[in-house]
């Protein structure tokens, strides 16, 4: 089996959001917080704002142009105070001035089509969006928060920061492969589906479900794990394909348990299942072949030849140099480190030359 670790490493580099977007996602939020905090017309509660979505999750795949930002407002969700409809209008009025305050060209709008519960601020100069979601957070951002429902009629429970923390915990617990796997799943969807895409949060919820269920062996390499994840999702829902009507999966929210995919259109679900079936079959062939070129070709069918490289000489040489015995360090789990880590036990490698039978 060709695990193609270097190829997968390069694939992950090729599908991460562009550097200028990552920088914008880091630089804009403090400025935005300052702007919102200063406002007298629109009262907020400290710490006022908090990033949510794929950037703080560390699971962005591709050119993610929107950054989700929570805005903490005072209120009581049970009494439906403040009225979500009025609040969202007030927030829009406030954010109308944001592009100018930041010195950018842009505009704000209430996003009804996409996120449906947010104010969408577009920055023309860097082709970038900030989605502002007002929330009531009785226990701070780390606890359960309340966001407007789709019709802005009431406040409903959500736990976005809990989800981010959960991903961090799973990433640590399961050999550092959970987030890369989530990124691959999102990229697979983006590459294989131009329309009818399942939402990123649904994919994240499916990933969390299968990781927690223990069905995925995270001691395996990423290629095997990706195959096993597609296979597990397909097998979880293939019985629904035999049931007629409008049936589609109920994907439970990883934090609160309610059905997050209640509006998954049946035909969209069927399209997703067909792509999953193709993906798991190609991945299986890629893992079974004893021909490296064939394995690469199958992975390229899955992820795209423009993302999954044929040649990795430069990356392999770079790693080989960094790993050189006498220069590199080894962690307590065997990870090869080019430099001293901030945390954890490590051992400096001593110089050596590998001996033995020459390769053919």
């Amino acid at each position, binding site marked *: *089996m*060709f*695990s*193609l*670790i*270097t*190829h*997968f*490493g390069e694939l*992950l580099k090729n599908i991460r959001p562009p550097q200028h977007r990552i920088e914008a996602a880091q630089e804009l939020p403090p400025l935005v917080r300052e702007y919102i905090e200063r406002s007298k017309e629109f009262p907020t509660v400290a710490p006022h704002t908090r990033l949510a979505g794929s950037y703080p999750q560390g699971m962005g795949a591709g050119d993610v142009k929107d950054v989700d930002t929570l805005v903490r407002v005072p209120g009581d969700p049970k009494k439906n105070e403040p009225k979500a409809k009025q609040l969202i209008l007030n927030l829009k009025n406030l954010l109308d001035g944001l592009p100018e305050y930041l010195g950018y060209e842009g505009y704000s709008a209430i996003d009804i089509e996409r996120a449906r519960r947010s104010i969408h601020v577009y920055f023309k100069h860097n082709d970038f969006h900030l989605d502002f979601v007002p929330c009531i957070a009785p226990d701070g951002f780390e606890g359960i928060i309340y966001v407007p429902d789709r019709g802005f009629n009431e406040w409903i429970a959500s736990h976005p920061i809990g989800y981010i923390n959960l991903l961090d915990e799973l990433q640590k617990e399961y*050999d*550092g*492969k959970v987030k*890369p796997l989530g990124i691959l799943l999102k990229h697979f969807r983006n590459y294989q589906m131009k329309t009818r895409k399942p939402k990123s949060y649904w994919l994240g919820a499916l990933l969390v479900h299968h990781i927690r269920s223990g069905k995925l062996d995270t*001691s*395996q*390499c*990423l290629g*095997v794990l990706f195959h096993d994840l597609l296979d597990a999702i397909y097998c979880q829902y293939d019985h629904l394909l035999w049931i007629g009507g409008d049936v589609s999966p109920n994907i439970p929210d990883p934090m609160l348990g309610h059905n997050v995919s209640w509006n998954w259109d049946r035909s969209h679900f069927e399209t997703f299942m067909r792509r999953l079936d193709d993906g798991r079959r190609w991945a299986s062939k890629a893992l079974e072949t004893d021909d*490296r070129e064939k394995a690469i070709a199958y992975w390229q069918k899955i992820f795209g030849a423009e993302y999954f490289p044929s040649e*990795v*000489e430069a990356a*392999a*040489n770079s*790693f*080989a140099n960094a*790993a*050189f*015995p006498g220069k*590199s360090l*080894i962690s*307590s*789990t*065997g*990870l*090869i480190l080019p430099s001293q880590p901030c945390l954890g*036990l490590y*051992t*400096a*490698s*001593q110089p*050596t*030359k*590998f*001996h*033995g*039978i*020459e*390769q*053919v």
Partner: protein
Amino acid sequence: MGLSKFEYSQLRPTVNLSLQSLHILHRFPGFTYRRERGAGVWRGTLQPRPLSQKYRVAIGYKLHCHPTVKVITPTLLPKAPHRWSDGTLCLFYPKESPWRQDMLIATTILPWTALWLGYYELWLDTGKWLGPSSHASDRQLQGGCANPDEDSKEVS
């Protein structure tokens, strides 16, 4: 008159199996230790790169012999380079830098095993061994085993 090289080497303290184990279990706490037929055997997993699989390895060591390292799972490709004829890993060139009894497995053999696995993966990806190689024209060593005089009891 100074000591000869041999006499000097005799002065070096031998690191016994218990001390080796103490260092291994401290630096690589995921490993376990057992005494088997007079030899120390340490088993555990190593993951050389963040996206790699975990390799289960067994390190065997009998005093006055070279430590041996075998990858238990997964099965390595038969053509994988830098192995002795019994499949154990060739982590150093004994003629150039022989094993000494004052050496610690935890700071030599185990880190070299992780590096060997990292270079093995690069070999799988590129078809080339990109790590440092020593292929001296010593026919006795090529295709031999780490401890030719020992009754080789394979660890697994």
